[in-house]
C-alpha cells in the first residue's frame, strides 16, 4: 500500500523507462524467431490489403496491358528464336573448348506490391512467399541486373532488401579488369564500390558485376556502371561511384533466383 502510494506520482516515468528497456531488448534481439514471426505477420496483413488494391488496378489497366503483352510477346518470340540459334552455336563452341562452368538459373516471377522508403532503409514487398518456394536470402533480379535479396518470408508474400539499403552489401568486381570490391549504398542515387586499392584498373563506364564470392549471389549479375572515380591523398582506397543498372523507381515485376546450378 505504502509502495503503491510512493510509486503513483512516478508511474508515467516508470512506464516510460519500462517501455524504453523493452525497446532496447527488442533492438538487441533482432534475429530472434518470435520477432521475425511478428514482422512477417505485420507484412502479411498489409500485403493482403495491397494485393487487393493491385488486383483492382490491374483490372482497370487490363486492355492497355493486353496490347503491351501482345507486342512484347512478338518481340520476345523473335528474340527467342535468335537466342536459341546463339545458344546452339555457344554450346557447340563450348564443347569444342571443354568449358564446364555454365550455370542455369531457376527463377520465380514476382510482382512488387509495396515499397518501403525511408532514408537508408529500403524494402519491397513481393507477392510470393514460402508457398512459392521462396526462402530467405534469395537474390532478386530483373533483366537489367541485381535488385537485392529476400530478408523476410511469409506464406504468400515476402520482403526484399534492395541495393539502396544501407544495411545491404554485395561483393562485386569490375567486369573488364576483374578488380574486386564491396558494393554498399550510403546516400543519393549512387552506390559505392569500396575496398578497391588505389591505382587499380578501374575506368568510367566499366560494368560492375557480382563476384559470386558469397553464397547468396551467383557470379556475373550486373550491378551497375562506374560513374565517378576519385582518390583522397591520405586514403588507401579509391572512391568509386556506381550507378545501379536497375531503375528502382520503376520496379514492378522481378525474379527471384531459386537456384543457380551447373548444367554440365
Amino acid at each position, binding site marked *: 500500500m505504502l509502495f503503491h502510494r510512493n510509486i503513483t506520482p512516478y*508511474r*508515467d516515468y516508470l*512506464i*516510460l523507462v519500462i*517501455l*524504453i528497456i*523493452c*525497446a*532496447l*531488448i*527488442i*533492438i538487441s534481439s*533482432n534475429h530472434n524467431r518470435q*520477432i521475425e514471426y*511478428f*514482422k512477417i*505477420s*505485420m*507484412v502479411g496483413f*498489409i500485403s493482403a*490489403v*495491397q494485393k487487393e*488494391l493491385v488486383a483492382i488496378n490491374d483490372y482497370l489497366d487490363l486492355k492497355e496491358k493486353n496490347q503491351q503483352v501482345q507486342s512484347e510477346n512478338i518481340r520476345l518470340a523473335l528474340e527467342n528464336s535468335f537466342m536459341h540459334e546463339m545458344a546452339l552455336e555457344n554450346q557447340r563452341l563450348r564443347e569444342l573448348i571443354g568449358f564446364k562452368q555454365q550455370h542455369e538459373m531457376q527463377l520465380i516471377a514476382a510482382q512488387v506490391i*509495396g*515499397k*518501403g*522508403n*525511408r*532514408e*537508408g*532503409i*529500403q*524494402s519491397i*514487398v513481393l507477392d510470393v512467399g514460402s508457398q512459392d518456394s521462396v526462402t530467405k536470402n534469395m537474390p532478386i533480379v530483373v533483366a537489367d541486373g541485381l535488385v537485392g535479396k529476400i*530478408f523476410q518470408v511469409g506464406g504468400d508474400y515476402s*520482403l526484399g*532488401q534492395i541495393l*539502396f*539499403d*544501407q*544495411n*545491404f552489401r554485395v561483393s562485386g568486381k569490375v567486369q573488364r579488369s576483374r578488380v574486386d570490391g564491396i558494393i554498399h549504398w*550510403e*546516400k*543519393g542515387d549512387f552506390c559505392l564500390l569500396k575496398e578497391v586499392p588505389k591505382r587499380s584498373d578501374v575506368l568510367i563506364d566499366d560494368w560492375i558485376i557480382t563476384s559470386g564470392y558469397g553464397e547468396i549471389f551467383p557470379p556475373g549479375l550486373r550491378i551497375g556502371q562506374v560513374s565517378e572515380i576519385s582518390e583522397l591523398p591520405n586514403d588507401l582506397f579509391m572512391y568509386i561511384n556506381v550507378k545501379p543498372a536497375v531503375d528502382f523507381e520503376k520496379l514492378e515485376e522481378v525474379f527471384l533466383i531459386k537456384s543457380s546450378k551447373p548444367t554440365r
Partner: protein
Amino acid sequence: MRFIKYIIVYLILLFVEKKFLDLISIKDVTPDIILIFVIIISLREERLRSTFIGFFAGLIQDAFTTAFFGLSALAKSIVGFWGNFFQQPKKKYTIAYYMMICLVLVSVHEFIYQVIQKMGSNIHFFSLILFYIIPKIMYTLVFAAIAYLIFGPAIWRARSTADRLI
C-alpha cells in the same frame, strides 16, 4: 470508440506510408506521417496513453523496414511521453505553438532514430545531421503544418473531450 478511430487512422497512415510516400520522396527523404500522428495523440491524450500509443505505433512501423526492429518504438514512445508536457488544457493551439512543439519532438525523434540507426557506419556526425536529420525534420514539418491546417480545430476539440474523460 476514440481508440478504434485511432487504430483506423493509424492503419490508413501506415498503408499510405508504405504505398504512396515514396512517390513524393525528395532525394530519398520522406516525411514521417506516423510521427505526426503520435505527436497529435500526445497533445490529445494523457501521458501514459500517448506513451503506449507511440510505442506500439513505432513497433508496427518497424515491422516494414530493415532497420533495427524496436528503434521507431523507442523513439516514438519518448515522443509520445514528452509531447504530453506541451499540452495546453485551457487554451487553443496556435499554429506557431503547434509548429514549435513539432520542431522539438520531430528533432528529438530523428536524433534518436538516425544516431542509433547509423551507429557503426562511417558517416560523419556532421553529414548525418546535414544530410539525414535536417532534411527529414524539414519535410516532416511541412506535413505537420498541412495536418494542422486540415485538422487543427479537430485536434483541439478532441483534446477537450479527452480532458472530460480523464
